[in-house]
């Protein structure tokens, strides 16, 4: 007989529990619990940071003032704003049940979600970079991770998206970067106001079908092992050490300063500054948009240089700027260390 699918609807939970509940499920699946599909909706807004990301990417002062808690999750991706207009789902399986190769494994676990969106009339596609999109707009944020012997992939149904808050919680370096980030968020992140009950039912059917699980599914709650894990996770996720993350902080880096914000795969804004030279811009599939330059020696050629960069491939920016004398060369150096595609 095929394995069954365990389905857990955690309903509306506190921001902390909207993270720790499904992390606890991963420990359960690792220890032998069935494949589990879970759902949770945060009661109030908060910010969540990918496992490796720098806390400095979040405007923690603004979050504190707005009473948005900030947590670090154990899966990948960047800092994101979450609220009660987003219904989160998590699919958790044992690692040996997945194909080799992370990208392939990820697609295996995201494709049923795409099928569910389509069954609900949303023409979603899983694009080449692994984003779930409708006509180029991301409609489902996702992240994945291996926790012990379980792999968990998370995503969301975005019923309404607060682009302003999603931008405001990020620690952008310059006002021009904030403006460009908000513009790109509006252009490339969208919502799908699907009925949440229908979404849960369709997702359940889609994952059962795709993972060849049997015809019935268990409506269930956490096991004793998972409740124990939950208590430990509640403590871990609220500790300062965990929030600071596993990587050395960026503090102490030289005069060179870069702030990158990813809107969706292939869509970025950045601000880079060194020795009084500053550039902020958006990058859409490798092409520069909304470029703002500042350098003490640029004087009257600023607008000309900005115009020359607009619509250019990012890779060509340094060469073009080098034609603007010493200030251009200072600005060109800012592009040399950018590796936008990696985050």
């Amino acid at each position: 007989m095929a394995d069954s699918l365990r389905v857990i609807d955690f309903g509306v939970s506190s921001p902390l529990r909207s993270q720790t509940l499904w992390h606890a499920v991963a420990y359960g699946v690792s220890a032998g619990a069935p494949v589990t599909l879970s759902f949770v909706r945060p009661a109030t807004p908060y910010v969540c940071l990918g496992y490796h990301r720098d806390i400095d990417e979040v405007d923690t002062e603004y979050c504190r003032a707005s009473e948005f808690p900030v947590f670090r999750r154990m899966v990948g991706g960047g800092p994101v704003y979450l609220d009660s207009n987003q219904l989160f789902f998590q699919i958790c399986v044992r690692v040996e049940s997945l194909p080799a190769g992370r990208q392939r494994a990820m697609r295996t676990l995201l494709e049923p979600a795409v099928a569910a969106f389509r069954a609900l009339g949303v023409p979603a596609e899983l694009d080449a970079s692994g984003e779930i999109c409708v006509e180029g707009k991301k409609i489902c944020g996702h992240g994945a991770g291996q926790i012990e012997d379980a792999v968990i992939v998370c995503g969301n149904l975005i019923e309404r998206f607060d682009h302003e808050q999603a931008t405001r919680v990020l620690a952008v370096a310059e006002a021009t970067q904030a403006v460009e980030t908000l513009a790109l968020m509006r252009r490339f992140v969208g919502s799908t106001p699907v009925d949440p009950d229908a979404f849960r039912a369709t997702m359940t059917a889609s994952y059962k079908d795709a993972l060849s699980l049997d015809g019935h599914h268990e409506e269930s709650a956490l096991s004793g092992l998972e409740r124990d894990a939950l208590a430990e996770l509640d403590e871990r996720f609220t500790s300062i050490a965990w929030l600071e993350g596993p990587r050395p902080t960026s503090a102490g880096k030289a005069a060179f300063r870069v702030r990158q914000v990813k809107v969706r795969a292939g869509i970025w804004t950045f601000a880079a500054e060194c020795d009084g030279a500053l550039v902020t811009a958006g990058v859409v599939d490798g092409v520069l948009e909304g470029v703002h330059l500042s350098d003490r020696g640029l004087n009257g050629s600023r607008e000309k240089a900005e115009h020359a960069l607009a619509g250019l491939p990012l890779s060509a920016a340094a060469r073009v700027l080098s034609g603007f004398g010493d200030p251009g060369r200072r600005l060109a150096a800012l592009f040399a260390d950018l590796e936008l595609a990696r985050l």
Partner: protein
Amino acid sequence: MAEKALVVIDGFALAVDRRYQAETHMWVLELGAGRVRIGMDVLGIETSGTLAQLSFEPAGTELIADRPFGQLEAAKFVGPLLSPVTGTVVTLNHAVIKNAGLIERDPYGEGWLIEAALAEGSAGLEALIFDPAELRAWFAAKIAGYRLRGVIAE
């Protein structure tokens, strides 16, 4: 360090001066006096996707073969880096922590991950593939398998 002995098999480079863990694609280069350098081969990198970030347990941490010594993030997927040996972490490569792209650019050289001291009497190295003919056969079989399953491009 001695020049890397690189061969290319079906389009993928393989350094044949070191040992490999067959499933995880981690390599182990002996540095002498019980010390080893650990990294990831090109197939491990290729099947991970674009490497974004990574983190390691700090120097002094005990390593156990097949247990995590760090985490690697690629395509928003965070997964463990499994140690091919038992011993102790001695040094981390801070250059790859700062820029994970270095692993892709020079996987058998500057893109190493950590250095470790092997545990006294550790027989772990014997379990790794070292014989050049066996290495080539293992690597070619892995490439063929990944291509067959669509994990890497034709």
